[in-house]
Every structure is written in structure tokens, then in C-alpha cells.
């Protein structure tokens, strides 16, 4: 079983962190994982994206052309990655910031009020955690507990408060469905 994921949004929306957390979690669950970020000049101008592959076999190509799952955090990302999604794929989109509506009919579209919920929790920047929680609930590719462990690995220098806030955001996302 191989799951290919693309996550995309503005710089500052924690895109890279989301990818790395998923990868750590995959590793903790003894899966093969690769993570591949956009890099360099692509980063200028404020958008970022990354590819994550989680698989029970050794991962061949870490670049994802036709993802099984797409998570988009802002408008331009929707435009860019909706078309790439595999037929029957899952599109998670940040309904708070994205005003357009996804158009494809051969995919499953999952709106998440990620920023709204994050703001509710007191910190807009953890919208990515809400998204991750929602995503693993819907897909069951990883366990909530592993994700919590993985975010603690990623933010090893963060305050306890921050870390539990992240947990709560994951929970909120997880609890959406």
C-alpha cells in the first residue's frame, strides 16, 4: 500500500512542518516514507508545497505527480493542485481562506474550516494541525497518537503549552468527522 500526498499553501502556513510530521509518523509506524519539499527560488513569492509518500514497500519516486491526497491551505494552491489529484482522490481544503469551490467531480472534496478552528483555539498558525487531524481521520493512514508523538519530535524546542495546543488542534481536526 502506497499513499502519495501533496500539501500546499503560503509560506508561514506550516506546510513543510506538516509534511515532516506526517513522515515522522510514518516512520514511527514502521512504514517507508519520503518527504520532498519545494525549494529554492520556488519559495520566493510566498507559496510552498511538499510531497509525502507513505508506503509499506520501499518508496520508488519521492516526487508525487498524481497524488492520492491533496491538502490545500490557500487559493493559489487549490488552482494548482486540484487538477493533479488522482481520480477518486481526496481533496482537503482550507475553507476559511479559500473562497473558490473545487470543481472536479471524480474526487472526494473535504472542506475544513482550518483557520477558523485554529483561531478559535487562539492561534491561526496551527491551522495545519487541524488539517492533519482531519486528514488522518478520513483516511486512517496514520494513528492520531503517532501524529501527536511526531509533532513533538518536530517541535522539540517548543514550549509545553505550544505542544499541547498542537495536540488539541489535531484533536479538533480529528473530531470533525
Amino acid at each position, binding site marked *: 500500500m502506497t499513499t502519495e500526498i501533496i500539501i500546499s499553501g503560503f509560506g508561514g502556513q506550516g506546510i513543510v512542518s506538516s509534511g*515532516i510530521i506526517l513522515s515522522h509518523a510514518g516512520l514511527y509506524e514502521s512504514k517507508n516514507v*519520503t*518527504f520532498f*519539499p519545494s*525549494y*529554492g527560488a*520556488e519559495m520566493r513569492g510566498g507559496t510552498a508545497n511538499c510531497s509525502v509518500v507513505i508506503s509499506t514497500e520501499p518508496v*520508488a*519516486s519521492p516526487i508525487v505527480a498524481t497524488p492520492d491526497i491533496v491538502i490545500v491551505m490557500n487559493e493559489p494552491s487549490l488552482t494548482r493542485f486540484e487538477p493533479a489529484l488522482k481520480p477518486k482522490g481526496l481533496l482537503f481544503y482550507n475553507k476559511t481562506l479559500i473562497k473558490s469551490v473545487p470543481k472536479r467531480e471524480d474526487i472526494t472534496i473535504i472542506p475544513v474550516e482550518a483557520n477558523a478552528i485554529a483561531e478559535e483555539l487562539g492561534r491561526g498558525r496551527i491551522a495545519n494541525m487541524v488539517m492533519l487531524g482531519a486528514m488522518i481521520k478520513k483516511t486512517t493512514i496514520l494513528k492520531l497518537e503517532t501524529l501527536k508523538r511526531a509533532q513533538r519530535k518536530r517541535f522539540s524546542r517548543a514550549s509545553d503549552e505550544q505542544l499541547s495546543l498542537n495536540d488539541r488542534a489535531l484533536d479538533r481536526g480529528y473530531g470533525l468527522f
Partner: protein
Amino acid sequence: MAEKKLMYGNHAIVEGVLAAGCRFFAGYPITPQNEIPEFMSIRMNEIGGVFIQTESEIAAINMLFGAAAAGKRAMTSSSSPGISLMQEGISYIAGADIPVLVVNVVRGGPGLGNIAPAQSDYFQATRGGGHGDYFTITLAPNSAQELYEFPKIAFELAEKYRNPALILADGLLGQMMEPVEFSYKPFDPETLPEPPYALSGCKNRERRIVRSYDLKPGKLEAWNWQRQKKYEQIVANEQRFQATACDDAELIIVAYGTCARVCDAAARMARAKGYRVGLLRPITLWPFPSNILSALAEKTDHFLVVEMNMGQMVDDVKLATECSKKIFFHGRPGGGVPTPPEVYGKIETILGGAR
């Protein structure tokens, strides 16, 4: 088995280099390998090695020349345009028979090109982009794990043969994260013996000279012949490769580095459809694994070379198989990365329609 750590490919190189006992890095930033100098600057500081961000790639390769001539394991890393700038220096180092390690995290070219992954520096790496008759031992890893392990192999080969060694990676290998196992015990550089050519002050010994010139008639020629002997030994002894399902294959893909991973996926797709498809992955690009290819050519009819360039390795495959088989090619230049379905499509076409 040691615990696995999720790491960037570029960070894996750094750990591999340090574990190999190298304590000298000089380099100049360039995407997509900036994480190498960045992480190296931190790690060298921690363990007390030398990290120099140089004024240019030319300065870097020449600092390497100095450090390696002084008997130390020394490395630099860069990406395509920067490596081009090092060609004179590499030629000097090869001409002085000094071992160094150069890492090229290849990007799309020619010129400024782009920063996407590529393999279009194959010619440069395998037949001396610099002037004169020389070769550089060239290793092509295809995972973060190998990025960790190959620096040690590279240094050992470089020192065994007193020759520069290259690791040819690409933007994808450098930028991605994968689990890495620290699979061997790090060297203590203090335990490495002083090489016989090392400049260290002539106390209690004859003075030494490191150089690449000889103007006396005939001398440089003789020196070249001597070096040629060494190259023949390397070609005889150091061909490395990974062969997957090649034994009864009707088609063998030849691909290295990132492309080998893509082709691995494509080969699996093909096998699932009943095609007998093998994968021969050159690990040393120079010396090229000609022996195995020549053996495989005896029983295999189709060869497909896949590269992220315009077909630079095709010549080597033709030469290794004595032009006895038609060699098919699928490639993408300028930073294009082939996908498994693409390669699978090619396999289907070659082997004649779906099964």
C-alpha cells in the same frame, strides 16, 4: 540495527562525511545543496573540524587541494555551475594524484538552468570535464541511506588510488527526507595514518613536493602512462552496480540515482503485467560497470537507458554491450524527472503492446 533517523539527503551526506573522518569542508552556497554547507557549518563547529565558506567554487576546490595535499580527508560540495568552475582545479588535483571528495548535487542545465533535479553532468563527471587525460571515480547514490554511506567508500577509493572521487547526486536526493540508519562506526580522524605524499613540514624526512607539472621532456608523458595503469586497475577492480531481476529479463533498464528509483517503480508495474523486466543500476559511473552489462548482453535482447538528461550514458551502455543490442532511451533534460508510468509506457512500446 541502529535506529533510523528521518533526514534530508543533504544532511545525510554531512553525517556520512563526518563519520568517514573528514574534518575539512570548503564550499560556496548553491541550490539545491545549500543544506550541506549549512549543516556542515554547525556540525564542524560541534566536533572541531574546519568549515570554510569560500569566496567561490574555485577557491573551494583549491582549498581542498591544499588540505588534501596536507594529508587530510577533505571535501567540497556544489551543484552544476559551481562544479564547472572547479574543472581546472580538479584537473590539477588529478594531475597531482591527490585524493579529495567532490559532491555534485546536479541541477537542470545548461547555464544557470534551474534548480530542479537532473543528471546532465554525466559526461563531465565520467570523462573529465577538465583538460588532460584523467578520470574521477564517480559514485551515484540513490537514497539518503547511500548518501550517508558513500562518502566513506569514496574517500577509501580516492585514497587507495590517489585520485579525486565524485559523488553525483541530484536536487531530488539532496532535498528529500528519508529514514537513515547510521550503519557504521564513525572513524576517528586521528587514527588515519599520514599519507606518504602529505605536506606537513620536512622534519626528520625528505622534503616533499606536490605538483601536477613536469616540463622535462618525456617526464609528463611517463607520468601519464603511470596514471593510466592506475586507471586500468580501477576499471578492473572497482565496478559497482545493483542488479535486480536481471537474470531472465527480456528487457533490462539501465538507470542510476533518482532515475533508478523511478525505474524500479516502473519495473514493478511492468512485472505486475507479466513483462520480465530487470533493472541494472550502475553505482560507479566511472568505472562504468561494463563487465556485468557485457555479460547481460549475452542473454538479454532489450536495453532501455533512462536518464534525467539527453542520453549521456547511452554511449557507455553501447560500448559495454559492444553495440550488439539496440539500446532504447528515455530521458528528460533540463530538470524534468521521468515518472514511473512514463517509463512503463516506454517498456510496453518496446516489448510490443500490452500483455
